[in-house]
């Protein structure tokens, strides 16, 4: 089992140290990514998803690693030396960022950009390398001529694909995809999401973390889901389990507020979640959903411990036993 784990994050805390105090955007997060799986991370805007990605890939002030480990193939990348970690990135662990539309330098042709990047990892981009790049381009249904173009000459969807090619060009074991579909049309969304699956199928990438606020997409491609709320992980489990038998009150509320094609208001009235997400600045202990939770008790003022209901299904809630699985949809 342990050998199957690519990334083992343990009690990771990463805060934004700003003037007003600490923004506890990733606070005691624990999860694993297994070889060959796509782990979906979902949660509302501001719950710390991107922060988690940044903590793993690029910590820039004011973001600070506070405590906890992130073992990538057994090595703690939080404690790693800067140069060692630098070499690890792109070649073994990579990211597809949220801001695909301006992730490329406007004055560099795509090909030059790729060349410069892989050189940084000691790879001399020879003809066979370019053959590979071109093949990948074709794989994402782009004309290899794109390599000779400037970013401005590409549409948003094309840029997204280019970024996906670049980020996976060195066949990394782990790819973190942060909201790669949010800015896209439904059709491009589908293309990008399935592309990630195909990349894994073809063995180009090992595993992936797919971050989005759109559960419906995760349902399409993820193997397991991790639901975040207010900097905490509230529930983790296989996608079918989470979608159909959520146990955490937040997951349940989230799912029940998702519209599905074929549901009209006059037939079924979906309810949102009352209240607003917590302010993460200088937030104290306790379950962070408690303000909005119908099951809250005094106990919720303590931070809930994460428990495994199933070997594969863990949850952080004091009351999950009372709540019971609710089938949705």
């Amino acid at each position, binding site marked *: 089992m342990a050998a199957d784990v690519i990334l083992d994050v343990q009690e990771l805390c990463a805060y934004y140290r700003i*003037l*007003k105090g600490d923004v506890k955007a990733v606070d005691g997060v624990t999860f694993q990514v297994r070889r060959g799986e796509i782990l979906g991370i979902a949660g509302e805007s501001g719950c710390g998803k991107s922060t988690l990605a940044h903590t793993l890939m690029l910590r820039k*002030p*004011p973001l600070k690693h506070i405590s906890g480990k992130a073992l990538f193939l057994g090595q703690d990348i939080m404690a790693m030396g800067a140069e060692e970690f630098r070499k690890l990135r792109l070649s073994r662990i990579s990211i597809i960022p949220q801001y695909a539309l301006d992730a490329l330098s406007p004055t560099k042709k795509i090909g030059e950009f790729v060349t410069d990047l892989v050189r940084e990892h000691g790879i001399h981009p020879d003809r066979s390398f370019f053959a590979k790049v071109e093949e990948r381009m074709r794989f994402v249904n782009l004309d290899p001529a794109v390599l000779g173009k400037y970013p401005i000459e590409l549409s948003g969807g094309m840029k997204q694909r280019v970024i996906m090619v670049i980020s996976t060009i060195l066949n990394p074991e782990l790819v973190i995809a942060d909201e790669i579909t949010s800015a896209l049309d439904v059709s491009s969304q589908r293309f990008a999401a399935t592309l990630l699956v195909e990349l894994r199928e073809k063995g180009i990438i090992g595993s992936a973390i797919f971050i989005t606020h759109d559960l419906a997409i995760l349902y399409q491609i993820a193997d397991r889901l991790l639901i975040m709320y207010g900097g905490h992980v509230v529930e983790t489990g296989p996608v079918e389990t989470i979608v159909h038998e959520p146990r955490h009150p937040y997951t349940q509320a989230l799912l029940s507020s998702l519209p599905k094609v074929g549901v009209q208001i006059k037939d079924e009235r979906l309810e949102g979640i009352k209240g607003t997400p917590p302010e993460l600045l200088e937030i104290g202990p306790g379950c962070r959903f408690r303000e909005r939770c119908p099951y809250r008790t005094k106990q919720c003022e303590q931070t809930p411990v994460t428990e495994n209901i199933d070997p594969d299904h863990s949850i952080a809630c004091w009351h999950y036993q009372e709540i019971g699985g609710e089938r949705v949809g």
Partner: protein
Amino acid sequence: MAARDFWRRHENLYFAITNKKVIFGVVIFLSIMALSIVGPMITPYDYEEFAGPGYQRPSKTHWFGTTIMGRDVFTQVVYGLRSTLLVGFLAGTIASAIGLVVGFVSGFFSGRAPDEGLMMLTNMFMVLPSLALLIILSAYLPYRGIVTQSLIVAATAWPWTARAVRSQTLSLKSQEFVNLSRISAAPTFRIIREDIAANMFSYVFMVYILQFNGTILSSVGLEFLGLGPTRGISLGLVLQNAVNWNALHLGMWWWTIIPGLILTMLIVSLYFINTGLDEVFNPRLREL
């Protein structure tokens, strides 16, 4: 706790007053301002008066020494500073105002005839060699007081402000709150005032600082060429006099270096304020 709350609310202000560049700039700028305000009050001389023998180095009676003819350099500097600041203020205001109006109108009517016309005018002025234009303009005015000089300098200084303000207006105009005001049938004037102008304030302030500096430097250049104000005194004129009367060659460093240094520091201080404020309003540049 209340203090903390206050700072939370006025984050920019906090950053402004804790920004080292702003502090440095403000301290120097205020000292120079103070010099121009207090100086004329404490000096016992008039700037045109023969206050003592010529060629005096700085001393108790003549803090910045005397000129070749025996005028008091300190007095000249503090009075000169006043008009230099005034020129910067006037010309900076005029240039910013023209730039603001042009940029604003053009941004507001973007894509339509007034916009194209004004932008063409702006581009024209932008490429016209400004010093040459300045020289020609000033040469044809009978007398130049501070006001005319400010006008002349401002006449060539506004175009880049116009461009900057235009793009700022464009981006503000596309903000939804402007549309919301429009569908509230709010009077156009109210929209301009509350939704656009008010939101441009901090930007305009920084533009203004740059204009202040630019116009001071231009007018000092004109003064050196003998195209400055034909009466009165200003730092540029003090320097021009120092040059004309061979101050440096005759060993009167105090007559050349002190006014020049004060002038330079004045401009430097404003640049510092500007850069500091840029960091404040532009969190990306904020010192972390």
